[in-house]
């Protein structure tokens, strides 16, 4: 049954004490065979299942997830959404995603709380200015809304920012008004619910142990709930994708590192846009609950501990306090780390591989949340058609042999 949400259903359920809301998705036992198994029940994986069912007519699909839905990097990021990337390939991919975000709440009939409050990327030195202005021009040529803000315009938008009295003064910024933030859980839950309605089996607490192949053809996946046969497998397991690829004998150019974020105690509205600075390494937005959501950096070493080093937080807080002295006495409530898989060119891999029926969607590094619907959409196309969508054709595995990299280190929010 299609679950509809409206002001009336909200009122009706409020009167009955919110006890009668229907379950958003089933929890089926896995079947023996699936046409497609998606490994990883985050936004990208659930979205892939949704688009496979909706746009490609596949019905026999499972999403398997080691923990709970959206408990990995989908729930461990700072939810910033933008498409102001330098190169054409990335700009098209992230803009595709941003356009899907703009219509997602109504498409899913589920509020993903996409708030287009604008995203600012600060420049702190001459080189930043040149680089950011170049990026603004590249964005405009690709039809992406992006413009240069002077220091005075920044001061007007974010009056609490200390632009002058700091070691790396703020000299200007790029601004993308259509950028913003969204609700991290909602994107996972919305996709899960609508995929489930189309018959997708969502299987939680089911850890993938090994991808089995025979003579270069995908056979299935060994899981904690037994062996599941499949014609095709899509691996979307972020930090753990490399580990799973290894189990099928495939080496991916990925390095897994903890990326940290933290939130403050809730306060009244004080910052109504997203401000990022990759030079001093601090970015911040304010959640609807009033917490400041602060993004920190990655550790310098490979690790799977969802924690991260304390020195990384110190660095970020130092920059935050210098940029926003008014936050100096605030308390931080929570801190966490997510394991991100970083590619040598800071661009993702959405690709098939040498093994027939095995597909990878990984390498999103420090900026995958914004791409969730776009990535899922083109990955579903790649799996269904056995060939990439025009938008993700550049993001193949072959680029690490041909050298045609999509070098986006400059546009990544986090310098890594």
């Amino acid at each position, binding site marked *: 049954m299609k679950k509809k949400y409206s002001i009336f259903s909200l009122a009706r359920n409020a009167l009955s004490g919110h006890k009668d809301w229907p379950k958003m998705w089933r929890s089926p036992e896995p079947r023996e065979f699936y046409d497609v198994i998606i490994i990883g029940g985050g936004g990208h994986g659930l979205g892939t299942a949704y688009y496979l069912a909706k746009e490609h007519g596949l019905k026999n699909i499972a999403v398997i997830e*080691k923990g709970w839905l959206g408990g990995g990097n989908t729930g461990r990021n700072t939810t910033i959404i933008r498409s102001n990337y330098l190169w054409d390939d990335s700009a098209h991919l992230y803009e595709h995603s941003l356009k899907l975000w703009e219509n997602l709440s109504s498409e899913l009939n589920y509020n993903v709380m996409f708030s287009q409050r604008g995203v600012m990327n600060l420049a702190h030195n001459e080189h930043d200015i040149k680089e950011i202005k170049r990026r603004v021009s590249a964005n405009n040529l690709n039809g992406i809304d992006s413009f240069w803000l002077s220091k005075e315009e920044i001061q007007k938008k974010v009056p609490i920012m200390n632009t002058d009295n700091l070691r790396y003064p703020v000299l200007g910024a790029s601004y993308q008004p259509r950028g913003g933030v969204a609700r991290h859980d909602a994107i996972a839950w919305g996709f899960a619910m609508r995929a489930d309605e189309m018959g997708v089996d969502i299987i939680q607490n089911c*850890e*993938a*142990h*090994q991808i089995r192949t025979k003579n270069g053809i995908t056979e299935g996946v060994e899981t*904690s709930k037994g062996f599941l046969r499949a014609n095709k497998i899509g691996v979307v*397991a972020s930090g*753990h994708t*490399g*580990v*799973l690829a*290894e*189990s099928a004998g495939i*080496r*991916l*150019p*990925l*390095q*897994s590192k*903890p990326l940290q974020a933290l939130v403050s105690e809730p306060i009244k509205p004080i910052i109504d846009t997203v401000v990022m600075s990759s030079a001093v390494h601090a970015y911040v937005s304010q959640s609807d609950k009033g917490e400041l959501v602060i993004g920190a950096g990655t550790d*310098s*070493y*490979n*690790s*799977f*501990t*969802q*924690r991260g*080093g*304390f*020195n990384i937080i110190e660095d970020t807080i130092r920059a935050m306090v210098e940029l926003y002295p008014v936050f100096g006495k605030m308390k931080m409530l929570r801190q966490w*780390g997510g394991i991100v*898989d970083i590619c*040598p060119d800071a661009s993702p891999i959405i690709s098939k591989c040498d093994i027939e029926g095995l597909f990878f969607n990984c390498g999103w590094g420090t900026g995958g949340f914004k791409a969730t619907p776009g990535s899922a959409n083109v990955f579903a196309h790649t799996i269904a058609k056995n060939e990439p969508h025009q938008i993700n054709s550049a993001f193949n595995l072959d680029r*690490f*042999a*041909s*050298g045609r990299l999509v070098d986006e280190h400059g546009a990544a929010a986090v310098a890594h």
Partner: protein
Amino acid sequence: MLIINCPYCGPRDQSEFSNGGEAHVKRPDGSKEIGDREWGEYVFIRANPKGLFYERWVHTHGCRKWFNCVRDTSTDEILMTYKLDEKKPNLNNFKSVVKTPSGEPEVGSGNFTVEK
């Protein structure tokens, strides 16, 4: 934050060190014969295991010497550090605490604070 045992200076705070990625990576032989793919693998692909990992560190703000290390990436526990000219230790000498390739250590991911 890690305490890293520099083979030359002894245990020091992680902030004195820089990480150098996977250790014991060998440049491929026959550079004229091998193809783009092999070169690509040498340039771009590094091991990324969850569990026991050979890696390099350099004591940047200390003796400035490079050395190797065996660390468990699932817990960040450093199991051994050794000089560059010392033999690569056998990983069977160490116990991996992760039972499945992508499983979590018993004490919980990122919470390896219990004294053994």
